[in-house]
């Protein structure tokens, strides 16, 4: 490993240790900072996982309350975001378990009737905005038509930029299963997009 990589790895480890110490103290200022830092990533993950904007917002708040309550369990050895997403995932599973007790151990497929509430931002022109919006709608609809486990793997890999190992940590699935989910999810999404464009 070269010096730059060492520096970044060391800086990340320091940051995680600092977060762990702050969570031990239940430091509200640290939590405010973390909420701001991870707001978009966490909400995006929850929106894709639940397929419902309102539910995602409720679970967003629940996740941070859970982070406060269970913060002493975070030891700083893993990346904070991995731990955060694992908490959010468990809350979604708990919610689904309450809603549909027959599928307690998996994410299931969420509410099929709910569409992703996605806001596209940052377009330079009206034409680009329209194209972007159409593409967003297509891909959102496609994401709703693939199983939740595949959807989750795609979001973590391609939107959150997590490594395969980190995804395995968040989902609790073996590495091979993670790879398989990404492959199958991508294939299913592509097939759906091809069908939608015809």
């Amino acid at each position, binding site marked *: 490993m070269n010096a730059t990589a060492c520096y970044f790895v060391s800086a990340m480890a320091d940051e995680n240790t600092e977060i762990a110490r702050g969570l031990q103290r239940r430091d509200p200022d640290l939590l*405010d900072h973390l909420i701001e830092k991870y707001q978009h990533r966490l909400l995006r993950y929850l929106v894709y996982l639940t397929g419902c904007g309102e539910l995602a917002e409720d679970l967003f708040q629940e996740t941070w309350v859970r982070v406060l309550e269970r913060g002493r369990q975070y030891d700083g050895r893993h990346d904070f975001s991995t731990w955060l997403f694992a908490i959010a995932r468990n809350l979604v599973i708990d919610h689904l378990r309450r809603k549909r007790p027959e599928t307690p151990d998996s994410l299931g497929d969420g509410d099929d009737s709910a569409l992703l509430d996605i806001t596209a931002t940052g377009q330079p022109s009206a034409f680009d905005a329209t194209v972007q919006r159409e593409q967003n709608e297509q891909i959102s609809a496609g994401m709703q038509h693939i199983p939740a486990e595949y959807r989750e793997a795609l979001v973590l890999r*391609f939107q959150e930029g997590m490594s395969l190992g980190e995804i395995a940590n968040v989902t609790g699935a073996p590495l*091979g*299963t993670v790879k398989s989910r990404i492959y199958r999810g991508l294939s299913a999404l592509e097939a759906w997009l091809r069908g939608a464009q015809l």
Partner: protein
Amino acid sequence: MSTDSMNSDPMSSDPHERARMLIASAGLERPGPEDPSKAEPSPVEQSWLAVHLESCTTCREFAENSCVTIRLLRGIQITAGERLVSATQMRVRQRAEELQRQQERLWVVCACCAAVTLSTVVSTALLWRGFAWIGQQARLSTPVWEGGFLVFYLMPAVFTGIFLLARGAFLADHNGSYQVDPRV
């Protein structure tokens, strides 16, 4: 059981399946880690994939389609509103204050328990000696003054229990609370 858990071997014997799984795992334009041994896929797999893609049109097409899909995926912006963030921060702060108060109460309860235990140990020893002295002065047999000690020792707890039971029965008879005369 998960739908994919039956078939999760990334190193499929089918070279096309293997190539597509590698393409999917690799993603698009993702900066690799500084340490090449941690690259996903590994350099060996990447070179195998490059050779395979040169000769396989269908896998190349899959790779191109994957690029488009991943670009579309990354183009989606979902942002949390300021209201949600501030509401969450406020809720977390309130919960933190609650937990703080709970912890303070717990400390008070623990301190009280420790004080009561200490005073019980000290007072029991003193009382025991006192009863032994009284028994000796009154020329009572040991079981008699020991019985007296036991009755004296348990009496506060017995009276408190009777009082609480009586109070509970009173409250139950009066619908859980004291009635207030509306004329007053």
